[in-house]
């Protein structure tokens, strides 16, 4: 069956509150009165398949008196085991879209949600609808040629007749129709060729035209080989290059070694020359050094003479300096002597002023004031100590009060907790009791269940035992029937067949003897004869001279009294022998069967066989029955065991239940009184719940008990604290009975003491201010003159030091001048000059050396480097020669050539493969292009079915319907006239539209929705159309929405149509009321 709708569910769509419509393949007649919502259902199908949930075109789906969003769920089968369910809710923020997939129609898995669903749907349907998201999409319900054909509104007949593929939003519909119509029209030879080509292309390419990489495809192995060959060629080339490079390196190194050797030799020569020059240079340097020393000696002597003269000048200057310093000292001493008497006078004046009586009286008064101040401070401290003690007592009293309050609070809390504790214990006890009752019930229920199971098993066991007996009886009956059959000694069917064959053989052989015999004779005398014709004998009397004529087929025998025997047989000797053999064979075989079966005829043998067959059939029947019974009794042992186990379990459970019974109450009585004990598992759950509750209460109980205990202990501690505090207060009061008075008077006393202290302080400051101005003046004068004396003393000391320094310098200069004079007297200036001249002459006599003397160390380094370089190069050369022997040579070149050859061969193979499969690919594309071009006129494929049906419908009045290349209906032929659709009746247009839609649905293998169509057709045509729809429904699903079910459900096919009374499926919103709360079913 092609694509068909399985189920449509709708909620809150237009006037429908809810609807659930199940459909079947074939013809579905969905009927109900007008205004029930049939058109809404069609709209819902369109919306489910075509309309994005956010589209404004969903607005008409909204129920006019309900706020809830409309929702649609459509289940359709694309092909066998490919079932899709699309669910959409059209409602602003509450919108959703889901697409689910199933193979069996029961288990669905989600395949998509949201916007992607539209794309997926259009990929499944390929109806020419553009998935949402593209630009330029039309508003409203998406439409294409196919949607118009399959889901269009039959009342809008013009839309159907004018529909064309050219108006489709995308090409998918065109492609699908092209495929479908081409498949209808393609030549079988073309199909065969195309299938072969596609198979070859599929060997090498994916559906997307890419080269296949899977195992078995031609490319991967070649690609891998190419890659390997390329790598090998590259490696080989590299080795050849390495080899060539190694050879070049050897040659280069050989050349470099030669050059290095020459360089080393050059460097050694340079070094030797430099060493000679070095020695000459050293000699010149030594002489020059001696010359320089002589010159230094001479210059030093000349400098010493100059120093002696300069020192004598300096001594004269120092003598003048010392004289000037002596004069300065004498002047400073004189100035000091003038100041010292003034200082003495000032000191005496100050001493005189400070020793007076007034000052002594002032100091006495100041001391008295200080004494009074000290006493006041002591009093203040004492007062503070008393106040502190009193405050301690007050604080202790307040603390005691606080503890008392705490005790009262805690006592109250403790009482509450004790009350709670008692309550919890009571509840726990009640719950435990309840749990026991439940456990009793549960055990009883378990016992009842076990007992029931034991009973059931026993019943099954009994049934199985009965089956076993039946089986045995049947087996015995079967055995008996077989025994009877055997006792008949009937021939086997094959023996009968063989007998028949031998009989036939005999008959044939005898038949061959039946050549036809005729005998005529005329007896001379009257006589009697026994005449046997073909085995049939009779006696005949002949008259004398009578002409007698006999004819037989194979044997003719006359035994004439007194004459003899005349016997004539047909056939030659061989034929007779053959006949005799056949007869004998048949006879012997038949006799053996007759004898065994104790019968005499073939028919008796057949009867015996039939009788035996009946007995055997009866035996088989007994066997079958026995087998069935055996099947029923197979598990009798297991059932027996299970029954025993179940009974034991019931007994255990009964005992367990009995333990829970109160004294004097039996389990059975309890069960009987209890009536329905309830489900065992539910009871277990209730018990568990109750036990949890008990555990919770016990936990609470423990916590409360702990709290009470803790609270009591804390209360005792607090009582003890109070007692201790009260004792402390009593002790403190005993020592300070007036503590409350002290606290009350403390502030006034402190104020008074502060005032008195301030007064004493002011008095001290007044006494101190009484010092006299005269004393101060004398002190200032003394300070002034003392300062002047210090300055003059300092000036005298400086002059003294200056004189001392000048004398010291003079003495030193005089000593040095004397030394220089003595040295100068010993100097030999002419001798020193002669020695210098001699060295100069020696230097001038030595050979000249280059201006830029060689750096010998540098040359030595050069020479060493050159030698090292030569050695190193020689080592490199040796290594390179060694390497060349390992990597180089013809071997490598051979491998490189081989690798290159391999690469070329593989490239050729690759090219061959490319051409081979490129050819197949090109052939496939070209075939498809040619096919497409061949089938561009899609209408041609539909003209025939539509026209034939139209002609049949109109008794040949209308012959051909015109359908354009893009499936647009163009007109209709009436006789020889080509007419436009505008020129025919509405009914005819309606019928053409139906036929066209039906043809498209058949070509696509898709369902077709017809909503209240053919209102303009007469009864006769309706009957024809009914037959047509039933015929089409053999291949596709046709869904008719109608308020006239009888128009479709009568006639020959009424039984095969699936009628759906929509009044039972649709629940409408009450007019003016609110939405119903549940779906109608």
């Amino acid at each position, binding site marked *: 069956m092609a694509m068909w709708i399985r189920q449509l569910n709708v909620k809150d769509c237009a006037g429908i509150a809810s609807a659930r419509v199940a459909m079947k393949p074939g013809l579905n007649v969905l009927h109900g009165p007008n205004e029930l919502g049939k058109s809404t259902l069609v709209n819902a199908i369109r919306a489910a398949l075509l309309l994005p949930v956010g589209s404004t075109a969903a607005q008409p789906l909204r129920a006019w008196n309900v706020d809830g969003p409309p929702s649609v769920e459509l289940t359709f089968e694309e092909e066998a085991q490919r079932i899709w369910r699309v669910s959409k809710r059209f409602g602003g923020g509450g919108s959703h879209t889901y697409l689910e997939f199933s193979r069996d129609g029961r288990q669905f898995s989600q395949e998509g949600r949201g916007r992607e669903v539209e794309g997926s749907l259009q990929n499944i349907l390929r109806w020419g609808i553009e998935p949402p998201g593209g630009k330029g999409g039309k508003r409203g319900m998406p439409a294409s040629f196919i949607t118009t054909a399959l889901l269009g509104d039959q009342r809008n007949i013009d839309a159907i007749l004018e529909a064309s593929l050219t108006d489709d939003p995308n090409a998918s519909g065109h492609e699908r129709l092209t495929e479908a119509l081409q498949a209808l029209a393609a030549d079988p030879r073309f199909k065969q*060729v195309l299938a072969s080509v596609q198979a070859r292309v599929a060997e090498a390419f994916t559906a997307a035209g890419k080269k296949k990489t899977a195992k078995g495809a031609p490319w991967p192995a070649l690609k891998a080989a190419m890659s390997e060959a390329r790598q090998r060629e590259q490696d080989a080339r590299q080795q050849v290059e390495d080899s060539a490079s190694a050879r070049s390196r050897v040659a280069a190194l050989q050349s470099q070694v030669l050059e290095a050797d020459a360089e080393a030799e050059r460097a050694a020569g340079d070094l030797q020359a430099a060493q000679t020059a070095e020695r000459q240079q050293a000699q010149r340097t030594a002489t020059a050094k001696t010359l320089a020393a002589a010159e230094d000696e001479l210059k030093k002597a000349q400098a010493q003479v100059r120093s002696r003269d300069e020192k004598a000048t300096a001594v004269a200057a120092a003598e003048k300096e010392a004289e000037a310093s002596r004069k300065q000292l004498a002047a400073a001493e004189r100035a000091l002597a003038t100041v010292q008497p003034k200082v003495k006078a000032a000191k005496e004046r100050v001493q005189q002023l400070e020793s007076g009586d007034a000052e002594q009286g002032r100091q006495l008064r100041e001391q008295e004031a200080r004494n009074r101040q000290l006493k006041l401070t002591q009093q203040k401290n004492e007062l503070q100590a008393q106040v502190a003690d009193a405050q301690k007592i007050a604080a202790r009293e307040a603390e005691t009060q606080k503890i008392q309050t705490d005790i009262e609070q805690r006592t109250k809390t403790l009482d509450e907790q004790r009350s709670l504790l008692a309550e919890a214990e009571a509840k726990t006890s009640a719950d435990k009791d309840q749990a026991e009752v439940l456990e009793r019930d549960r055990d009883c229920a378990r016992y009842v269940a076990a007992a029931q199971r034991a009973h059931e098993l026993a019943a099954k066991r009994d049934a199985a035992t009965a089956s076993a007996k039946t089986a045995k009886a049947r087996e015995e009956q079967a055995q008996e029937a077989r025994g009877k059959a055997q006792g008949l000694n009937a021939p086997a069917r094959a023996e009968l067949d063989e007998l028949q064959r031998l009989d036939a053989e005999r008959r044939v052989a005898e038949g061959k003897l039946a050549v036809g015999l005729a005998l005529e004779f005329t007896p001379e005398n009257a006589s009697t004869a026994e005449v046997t014709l073909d085995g049939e004998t009779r006696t005949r009397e002949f008259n004398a001279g009578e002409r007698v004529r006999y004819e037989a087929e194979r044997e003719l025998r006359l035994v004439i009294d007194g004459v003899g025997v005349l016997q004539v047989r047909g056939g030659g000797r061989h034929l007779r022998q053959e006949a005799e053999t056949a007869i004998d064979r048949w006879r012997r075989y038949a006799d053996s069967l007759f004898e065994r079966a104790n019968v005499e005829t073939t028919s008796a043998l057949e009867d015996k066989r039939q009788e035996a067959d009946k007995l055997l059939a009866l035996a088989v029947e007994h066997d079958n029955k026995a087998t069935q019974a055996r099947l029923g009794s197979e598990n009798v042992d297991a059932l027996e065991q299970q029954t025993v186990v179940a009974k034991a379990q019931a007994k255990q459970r009964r005992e367990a239940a009995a333990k829970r019974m109160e004294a004097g109450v039996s389990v059975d009585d309890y069960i009987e009184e209890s009536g329905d004990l309830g489900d065992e598992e539910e009871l277990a759950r209730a018990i568990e719940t109750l036990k949890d509750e008990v555990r919770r209460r016990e936990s609470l109980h423990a916590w409360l008990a702990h709290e009470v205990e803790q609270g009591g202990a804390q209360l005792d501690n607090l009582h003890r604290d109070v007692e201790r505090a009260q004792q402390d207060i009593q002790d403190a009061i005993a020592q300070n009975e007036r503590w409350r008075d002290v606290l009350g008077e403390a502030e006034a006393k402190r104020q008074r003491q502060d005032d008195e202290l301030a007064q004493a302080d002011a008095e001290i400051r007044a006494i101190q201010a009484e010092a006299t101005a005269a004393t101060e003046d004398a002190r200032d004068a003394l300070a002034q003159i003392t300062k002047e004396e210090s300055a003059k003393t300092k000036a005298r000391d400086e002059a003294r030091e200056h004189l001392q320094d000048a004398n010291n310098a003079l003495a030193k200069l005089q000593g040095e001048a004397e030394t220089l004079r003595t040295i100068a007297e010993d100097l030999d200036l002419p001798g020193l000059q002669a020695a210098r001249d001699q060295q100069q002459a020696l230097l001038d006599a030595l050979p000249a050396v280059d201006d830029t003397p060689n750096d010998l160390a540098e040359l030595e380094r050069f020479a060493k480097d050159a030698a090292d370089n030569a050695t190193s190069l020689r080592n490199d050369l040796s290594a390179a020669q060694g390497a060349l022997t390992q990597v180089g040579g013809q071997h490598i070149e051979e491998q490189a050539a081989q690798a290159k050859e391999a690469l070329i061969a593989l490239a050729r193979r690759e090219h061959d493969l490319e051409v081979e499969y490129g050819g197949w690919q*090109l*052939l496939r594309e070209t075939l498809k292009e040619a096919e497409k071009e061949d089938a561009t006129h899609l209408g041609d494929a539909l003209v025939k079915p539509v026209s034939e049906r139209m002609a049949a419908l109109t008794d040949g009045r209308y012959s051909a319907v015109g359908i354009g290349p893009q499936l647009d209906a163009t007109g209709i032929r009436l006789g020889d006239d080509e007419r436009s659709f505008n020129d025919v009746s509405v009914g005819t247009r309606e019928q053409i539209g139906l036929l066209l839609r039906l043809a498209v649905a058949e070509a696509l293998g898709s369902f077709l929705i017809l909503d209240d169509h053919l209102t303009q057709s007469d009864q006769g045509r309706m009957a024809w159309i009914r037959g047509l729809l039933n015929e089409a429904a053999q291949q596709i699903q046709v869904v008719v929405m109608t308020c006239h079910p009888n128009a479709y459900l009568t006639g020959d096919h009424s039984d095969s149509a699936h009628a759906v009374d929509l009044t039972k499926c649709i629940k409408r919103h009450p007019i003016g009321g609110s939405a119903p709360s549940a779906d109608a079913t």
Partner: protein
Amino acid sequence: MSDAPGDSDVALTLLHTADWHLGRRFPAFEREQETRLTRARLEVVGRILDVAESRNVDAVLCAGDLFDEPAPAQLWWGGVLKEFQRRHWQRPVVLLPGNHDPLTSNSIYHQAHPFRRGLPRYVHVVDEPGWELPLGDNAVVVASPCTSAAGDTRLVESLPKREAGDERIRIGLVHGQTFDIDGHQTNFPIPRGSAAERGLDYLAIGDTHAFREVEPGASAPTIYPGAPEATSFGEKDTGNVAVVFFPLDRRRRPLVHREAVGAWKWREEICHSMPELRALADEGELSKTVLRLTLNMAVPMGEYDEAERLLASLGGSLAATPRVGVLNVNREGLRLMTEDAIAQFNADMPDVLRATAQRLQTLAQDGDPQQKEHAERALHHLYRLVQDAA
């Protein structure tokens, strides 16, 4: 033995072979073909040793490059080992390391290698310069191995010279190149006149794949026996061993007999026309032929189809055994004449197939080179399918 000297005249008979190149790969061929060719190299070893037996030679000298690389896979050395082990010979066989299989620490000739350890006592490996093996009292083999893949060492000069009074037959055995090979770098050079210079009666050498006497007419022959199976197209005089007879009369030079042992022939053919291709296809036994066939012809559709069938017959298919042992076809030069290709299709072919052929023919004539090639092949595919369908 009909062409060999009589036994009484011969003092010594040797079999001289070289360049087996066991384990050599032939990557230019498809894997199965390559396997056939590499296997052939092992099979010829058995035939060489069979010749040695049938000729009853006194010794077998293998002058290097017996393996294509110093450490070949076990398949190859194991095969040789099996050949040696199944023959219970007394006659010595001497294996000389060449430049392809030099005596190195990792080579199969190393003392520790299982190949070397598995060799029967009669098989000797030359493992030092100036190595000597007496062949009875009257003859001696002197040899020097290659110890590297390349080098300019003159190995022949490390062979000891004949000492005064030594009258034995002296056979030299080295691997290398004589100076007269153009276009090659000389590897382990062997100077002319070396045989005489070292006092040898015969110098057995290996390296070149063609059978060649280096100095024809020299009193002491210097011989390349060549490869017993060819290794590539273009090699001449391959597939032989040298059987050398040393006359009792020492004044006479040894007689060198070339004996064929190779089974495979390597051929290159170019067909310019269908008759040539048909003639090739009609040839008899080709199962031991390596054929490189180049097609260089433009043919009409019928002949194109025939050419394809002949190639399938030569190269084999899933349904048929190949007639040619190893076939390598270069078909780039095989072109379809497309001018009247359509006319050769079935006349009652459906229109849509005719239209397809027409399009392909147009493309084959007007397309770019690649399109042309693909269109020609597509035309032939279509032709074959239509023929088959008919």
